[in-house]
């Protein structure tokens, strides 16, 4: 399977193993990366991709196995050591100080005492030569996520690495920004640099990667040439079996059903210097339909969710209407009593209290709506009815867990999300608002969650889904609106929406300009 026969591989990993307690996160991983190739590391969440690259980058120490770099066995015991060898990494979650400029952030990560002006000049030169325009003197807090990623990439390139590890780089980019990133990667490859590209997006892996290593449950399940595979065959390797296909029945009496959620002229001033103000948001969601809200992270989706859920109140009662009733001045419990249900983006610490049991977390969102079932006289909690309801949700949603009623924090992200979604579905809400329903959830569970949302809508509820995952929105939505810089476009019906149109709106194009690239595509 080796791409280069005569020259030694840049990086060779043999039998690398990492054990956390009873979990073998990486089990005898073998991997070779040749000079000048883009190598994909594929796998579902929890397959061991992050653990593997953390060992390569020196932030975790392997239990056993060896790593050789240019034919010599090495021990990488710190990120510093990794950088010295010539391994650079761009993390999925950026580590930038928002109150500092780009150049200052870059200077902080360099080991030497180069003056900031020199660093800024170098960064500017580098950014131009790689087609990643960046003003080194701009404040990180003012930059878009795509621009922040450029800082991370330039910071990495300044250390002239020979192997660059990119962790899910496109998850925060618009399709157009992603295209630019791919050009940069091609350019780096032509200069003989190697890239380890971690992703679960199969189309882009097929497009830019020379070879792929697929992980499942901590083991390598195959090496392949992604260009010779189909997305379906790659997915099968990742998941181990076929993923349930989403069925989307047509909406009955579309456009005539009752409006269950109406947002009219919603404005919100930013609560902190780095949060996004909401400007004149209008949206209505009718019974029976799923409306998707696309957008790059940090464009006000979190702020919108808080405003709709009632965690933050509006100035006027009529700004948010739920089932025809003014709800703008009602708190989250009162909005729930009107029939609404909410699932926030963060699971631990927002949708669920980490150190509380699942049955207690059931009470968290349902104590107001189901007071009769779960509370007795003087607010005494009925533990037995809570426990049986929790068990019902666990079995309906197929939540995998280690104890009968475990703490929320002990569940994997995907299983906890299944429980949180199931907790709300169990109520048969007439309005469901979900932020990032399947972020970090494995493909099988994600399909189940998406199907459940569609079915809820088809039974006569209104569903609003905020997501950064365009594939997901195209799969489940009847119309897609785009959030950019605190503003919401009007929803495009699913039949008219294309990746290009939505992508342009995500990048901030005027709605009027949307028609242009359709011919090009």
């Amino acid at each position: 399977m080796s791409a280069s026969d005569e020259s030694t591989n840049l990086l060779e990993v043999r039998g690398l193993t990492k054990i956390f307690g009873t979990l073998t996160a990486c089990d005898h991983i073998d991997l070779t990366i040749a000079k000048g190739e883009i190598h994909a590391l594929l796998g579902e969440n929890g397959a061991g991709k992050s653990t593997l690259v953390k060992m390569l980058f020196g932030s975790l120490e392997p239990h056993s196995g060896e790593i050789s770099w240019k034919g010599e066995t090495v021990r990488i015991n710190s990120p510093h050591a990794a950088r010295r060898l010539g391994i650079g990494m761009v993390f999925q979650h950026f580590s930038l100080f928002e109150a500092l400029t780009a150049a200052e952030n870059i200077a902080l990560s360099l080991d030497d005492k180069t003056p900031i002006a020199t660093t800024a000049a170098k960064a500017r030169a580098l950014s131009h030569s790689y087609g990643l325009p960046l003003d080194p003197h701009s404040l990180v807090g003012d930059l878009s996520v795509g621009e922040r990623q450029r800082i991370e990439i330039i910071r990495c390139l300044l250390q002239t690495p020979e192997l660059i590890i990119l962790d899910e780089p496109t998850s925060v980019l618009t399709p157009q920004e992603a295209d630019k990133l791919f050009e940069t990667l091609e350019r780096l490859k032509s200069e003989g640099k190697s890239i380890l590209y971690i992703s679960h997006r199969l189309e882009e892996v097929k497009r830019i990667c020379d070879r792929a290593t697929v992980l499942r449950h901590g083991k390598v399940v195959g090496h392949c040439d992604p260009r010779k595979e189909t997305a379906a065959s790659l997915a099968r390797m990742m998941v181990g079996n076929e993923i349930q296909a989403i069925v989307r029945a047509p909406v009955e009496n579309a456009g005539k059903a009752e409006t269950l959620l109406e947002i009219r002229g919603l404005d919100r001033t930013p609560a902190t210097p780095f949060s996004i103000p909401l400007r004149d948001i209008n949206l209505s969601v009718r019974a029976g339909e799923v409306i998707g809200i696309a957008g790059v992270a940090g464009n006000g989706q979190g702020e919108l969710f808080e405003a709709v859920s009632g965690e933050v109140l509006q100035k006027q009662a009529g700004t948010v209407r739920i089932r025809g009733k003014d709800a703008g001045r009602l708190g989250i419990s009162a909005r729930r009593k009107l029939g609404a249900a909410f699932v926030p983006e963060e699971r631990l610490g927002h949708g669920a209290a980490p150190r509380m049991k699942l049955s207690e977390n059931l009470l968290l969102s349902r104590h107001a709506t189901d007071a009769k079932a779960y509370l007795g006289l003087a607010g005494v909690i009925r533990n037995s009815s809570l426990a049986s309801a929790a068990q019902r949700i666990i079995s309906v949603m197929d939540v995998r867990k280690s104890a009968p009623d475990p703490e929320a924090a002990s569940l994997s992200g995907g299983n906890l999300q299944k429980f949180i979604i199931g907790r709300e579905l169990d109520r048969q809400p007439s309005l469901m608002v979900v932020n990032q329903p399947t972020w970090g959830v494995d493909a099988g569970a994600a399909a189940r969650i998406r199907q459940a949302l569609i079915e809820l809508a088809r039974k006569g509820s209104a569903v609003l889904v905020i997501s950064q995952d365009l594939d997901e929105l195209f799969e489940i939505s009847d119309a897609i609106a785009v959030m950019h810089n605190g503003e919401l476009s009007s929803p495009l019906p699913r039949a008219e929406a294309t990746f290009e149109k939505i992508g342009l709106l995500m990048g901030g194009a005027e709605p009027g300009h949307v028609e242009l690239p359709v011919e090009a595509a």
Partner: protein
Amino acid sequence: MRIELVKRPQYSRVFSALSPFIALVLTLIAGAIMFSALGKNPADALYYYFIDPLRETWSLHELAVKAAPLILIAVGLSICYLSNNWNIGAEGQFIIGAIAGSILPVAFPTFQSWIVLPLMMIMGMIGGAAYGAIPAWLKVRFNTNEILTSLMLVYVAQLFLDWLVRGPWRNPQGMNFPETRTFHPYAILPEIWPESGRAHWGFVFALVAAIALWFVLSKTLRGFEIKVLGQSPRAGRFAGFSAGRMVFFAFMLSGALAGLAGISEVSGAIGQLRPVISPGYGFAAIIVAFLGRLNPLGIVAAGLVLALSYLGGEAAQISIGVSDKVVRAFQGMLLFFVLACDTLIHYRIRFAGPAAKAQEAGQNA
């Protein structure tokens, strides 16, 4: 060799239960070392300190007298700490409660009726709650740090009491001593069992409060709300609980209980207001709350232990002639060890031997 703390994957139930006991043992060991450094026989000293006070009926009553305010204050504080509100000012709420409760017997000594005592208790609670509401309001309105404001208000309360008993409320027949007139019989909190000793109804209040709050915390939605808001405020907001209202609830409830402790102490044990009415109950109750694992029933036991440290301090002062400051030293050591031992709940100790060290040296080379 190096000692390392390694985070446990899940918290240890064993150490959660054992930690207070380990802390007690370590405190006794450190106490023995302290006594021998003072030139006393540690065995004798510990005997007079911790065993002797438990041998007589009257001193068991004294134990209840000292434990009553500690338990009352500490169960209120447990609500504060569980909901992540760091009320350090119970001493001040205790004093203001005592002052508010003393208005009737001191300023209106001629008003004598059975209704006076219940009114005094209620006014004491209102006074403490109102004083607790100040740091709560500052926290909610201006986001000030409640640790600082509640602590500083203690000194305000202490000086206010000092001024009262030296100025406007000084006993006209008191020969210029800085104290108020003694309470009339209708204003005295009676003893539970007068034939055997001095323990007053304050101890019963403490037990009732502990059981009631244990029930609220472990069985009701309000208890759930307290814990959720304390553990993850954002999840609490998602649940529809108001963090701001919880700040007021926790501070005013603990203020009210501290106020009740204050007026009970004055009306049950002292019988008048003096410049100093508390040997630091409000601060010692912080230790009680943590030693009792913030569980109201655990706090009853912890309150008795701390009360013993006060009694033993007095006993040791008389029998073996050590300074009364030893009491504070003991309480400080106890809090220190309790907090230190709590580390073992979430961490385990690992001894990194010379082998590991050599290996690391090899890596760094």
